[in-house]
């Protein structure tokens, strides 16, 4: 049990590093989540709405959007991160640090979330949409008052999956100087062979993911009335 004693002695030094790393991770993930929802949600709605027989049938648009989403989805995150470096610099003025990491994180998660949104929206009963047309609803009303509310539990579940994926991406962002828990695992754990930091970051990541997942599960359960 020597390691436990050593861990106890080192904890006061490790704690501030880990805490700041956690805050950096949360900062990256929260902003990236915001942008992902901002762009991914409309994209998912468009993927469904442009169906043949959808709200705004446009097979050509759908094909283009689908292709773009697939390209985004098939790039490994680590490659994507490098590929968008110049865009990152353009938008944030730097390629290092948590703020810079928000750009590739968002770009990586938008297509991922868009597909999950698409899947959730397809679950909505077509009969309900038809009934809304019969009541004289406008298309925008159908999206806002029927499609999205009816799919809400599925959307929240998709969002939780996205946030978890973002946490894992954010750890990868650490590899190219993105900051956060991943950065700590690499700098202390990998480069300095400091196992205490390595395992501590793992533990912190597990706790964050678990917290997000549990919160999401509670929300989904409270929102579904099926």
């Amino acid at each position, binding site marked *: 049990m020597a390691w436990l004693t050593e861990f106890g002695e080192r904890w006061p030094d490790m704690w501030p590093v880990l805490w700041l790393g956690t805050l950096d991770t949360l900062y990256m993930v929260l902003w990236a989540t915001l942008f992902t929802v901002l762009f991914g949600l409309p994209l998912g709605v468009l993927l469904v709405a442009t169906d043949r027989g959808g709200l705004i049938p446009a097979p050509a648009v759908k094909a283009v959007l689908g292709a773009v989403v697939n390209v985004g989805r098939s790039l490994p995150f680590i490659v994507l991160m490098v590929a968008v470096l110049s865009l990152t610099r353009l938008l944030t003025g730097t390629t290092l640090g948590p703020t810079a990491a928000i750009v590739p994180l968002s770009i990586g998660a938008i297509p991922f979330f868009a597909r999950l949104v698409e899947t959730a929206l397809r679950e909505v*009963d077509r009969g309900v949409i*038809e*009934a*809304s047309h*019969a009541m*004289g*609803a406008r298309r925008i009303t159908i999206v806002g008052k029927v499609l999205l509310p009816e799919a809400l539990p599925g959307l929240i579940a998709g969002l939780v999956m996205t946030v978890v994926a973002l946490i894992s991406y954010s750890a990868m962002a650490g590899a190219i100087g993105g900051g956060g828990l991943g950065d700590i695992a690499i700098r202390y754990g990998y480069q300095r062979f400091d196992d205490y930091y390595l395992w501590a970051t793992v533990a912190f990541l597990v706790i964050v993911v678990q917290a997000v997942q549990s919160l999401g599960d509670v929300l989904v359960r409270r929102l579904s009335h099926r």
Partner: protein
Amino acid sequence: MIEAVGLRKVYRLKGREVLALDGVDLHVRQGEIFGVVGQSGAGKSTLLRCVNLLERPTEGRVSVDGAELTALGGARLRAARRGIGMVHQHFALLSSRTVAGNVAFPLEIAGVPRAERRARVGELLDLVGLADKARAHPAQLSGGQKQRVGIARALASRPKVLLSDEATSALDPQTTESILDLLRRLNRELGLTILLITHEMDVIKRICDSAAIMADGAFLESGRVLDLLAAPGSRLARSLFPLPATDAPDVVTLTYTGKPDEPLMSELTRRFDVDINILGGAVEQVSDQSVGRLNVQIQGERREAALTYLHGKGLLVEVAG
């Protein structure tokens, strides 16, 4: 109230064409319940969906309450649809909303202010007998209760016309009965014109004033139920009063509406000296009248005179076979 002329609808699927409506003329009078009956695939749903332009007919015109819907589009079509209620076989309720929220939905679409919405929802739930379920979610209701919510929602914007697509087909017989009673009551109390489609003959018999029999995208016969029953060769009569097939000689099928005020059969034997043998038949309430249909074997020298006499008494006499 509903006038549809020369309706044709062709669905184009990859390389294949489906003729769902093949020249249908539909006339539904103000204040009546009109039933369209036919087997699955006959084109009933397509017809109904063409009435509120959920489906645009390939050819033909549709007018509801004097407005030609086929000439409308966009905002004016949406406005017209608000004057036409619709109930659906699988209820089509929003699972994310409470019962009250579902009934309020068409009012939100119509831009009715919140306070007014609330009052109207209360009235509607009273009307369909679900006042105590206002805060429940559809998943907590039985099928019959869900359909009552569907009906309340359809009536929210005070439509003059209600369209019903197999409203009772997903329900058990007792619940079906209560929903049909409700529709009948709404028809009488609110003067609501109802166009309903069904594959159950029983629905026609129980609540319809007029009916059409549909097959392969066309009406085989259509008109007032009692007129149809009194017409020779009526398919409706055959479907509503199925009589066992017989190969016995000299059998006629007699159809009468209203109670005969004389004992006709004994009158026949006395006057024409014929032998009478009732082989089968039924008497039922149709459109609030009792209608009977019998297979009767009539034999004797003066058989023809006996049949003429029956005809003169207002009975429909058809040679069975």
